[in-house]
Every structure is written in C-alpha cells, then in structure tokens.
C-alpha cells in the first residue's frame, strides 16, 4: 500500500517570498505523483503531475515540483507567492498501471494550509 506524508500542516509566508511545501511518500512499486490545490468550499484542482521523464515538473500558477526517487519526495515550490495562493495543498500518489495490484486509488496526504500574508 502507498502512503503520503505532508510534513507541514500549516505554512505561513509573506507575499513575494519563496515557499516550499514538503511531501514524502512510501510505496513498494512505481507511482505517479500529483499536487492539488483547494480553495475554500471548492473541489480540488490539479496543479501538476509527475508521470515519467524529467524529474522537474512545472505546473499552473507558477508552481513546480521535483521528484526525488532516492528520497521518495515530491516537494512543491514557488519562487514568489501571491495573496491569491492562499489555499490548501494536497500531495497524492497512485500506482503505475501494471506495476502489481490495483491502481484505481489515489492516496492523499492530509494537506498543507498555505497562508500568504501581506
């Protein structure tokens, strides 16, 4: 089974500062990795995904993430945040198809609340 750990439940930062939201995962098989953003009372929106290839993945809204297989991490970064980035961010993993076992489920971390202050 897979598991996801988001190391920080809350991250407060000032506007225009850089931010890193940390995500570590555990899995005995190859996985796909995702970051989602959730604004209050809305569904989850995909920020970016790692399926294969380059380990540095760029997403929407200026976010990027780097897959590190040896450290089983997929940290999310943004060089300069805006007030509008205030939201909850979720890291998720999913087994690669045909890697053994069911790959129907996405496993989510508990989320990191990013608060951007003026």
């Amino acid at each position, binding site marked *: 089974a897979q598991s996801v750990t988001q190391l920080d439940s809350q991250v407060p930062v000032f506007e225009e500062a850089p931010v890193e939201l940390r995500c570590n995962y555990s899995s005995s098989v190859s996985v796909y990795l995702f970051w989602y953003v959730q604004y209050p009372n809305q569904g989850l929106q995909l920020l970016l*995904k790692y399926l294969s290839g380059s380990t540095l993945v760029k997403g929407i809204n200026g976010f990027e993430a780097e897959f590190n297989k040896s450290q089983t991490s997929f940290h999310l970064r943004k060089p300069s945040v805006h007030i509008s980035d205030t939201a909850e961010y979720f890291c998720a993993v999913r087994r690669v198809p045909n890697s053994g076992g069911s790959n129907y489920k996405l496993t*989510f971390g508990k989320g990191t609340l990013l608060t951007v202050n003026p």
Partner: protein
Amino acid sequence: SQTIHQWPATLVQPVGSPLSLECTVEGTSNPNLYWYRQAAGRGLQLLFYSVGIGQISSEVPQNLSASRPQDRQFILSSKKLLLSDSGFYLCAWSHNTEAFFGQGTRLTVV
C-alpha cells in the same frame, strides 16, 4: 472536454433523514468514479470507488452506500443520516493517471 457535475452545493438535513447526492461526468466513457469525504483538518477520506456500472467498492464501514446505475452517474446515499455524516463530500473521476474533482457538497446534519 470532460466535465463533472455534482449537486447540490450545500445541504442541511435533520438527523435520521435520507440522503442522495448525485454526480455525473460528461465527455468521457468508462471512467473510474470516486466519493471522498473531507472533514476539517483530516484530509480526504475515500468512501467508495467504482470501476464500472454496478461495481462498487467500499473503503470504510459506515452509514453510507453508493450506486452506479449508469456509466457516468455515481450516487451517494444514506437511509438515515447521523450527526457524524456532516462534512464536505467530493466526487471525482479518473482513467489511469490524475483524478478530476467536482465542486463538492457541504452537508450539515442537524
């Protein structure tokens, strides 16, 4: 393009009343469908998933049930709501990679 519709957006129901939340997907066929519940500070809990019509897998024992009467329709139900059923319910669909989420239903059981 694919879209997912979930309704209602908010719902206030008395304890002991029935529940029916509906989710439909457009623009794709044979999707995997999911119901998640989100409680404050506890992340997303997978309640049910379905890989085909009439095929439902339950992740946790609870007061809820799910059905998939058509390929792109997923329904979450309860015969008698409990206070603990309050939360934010999210429907999602996927094929083999990312999942796409509906806008959610805020359920308050009073």
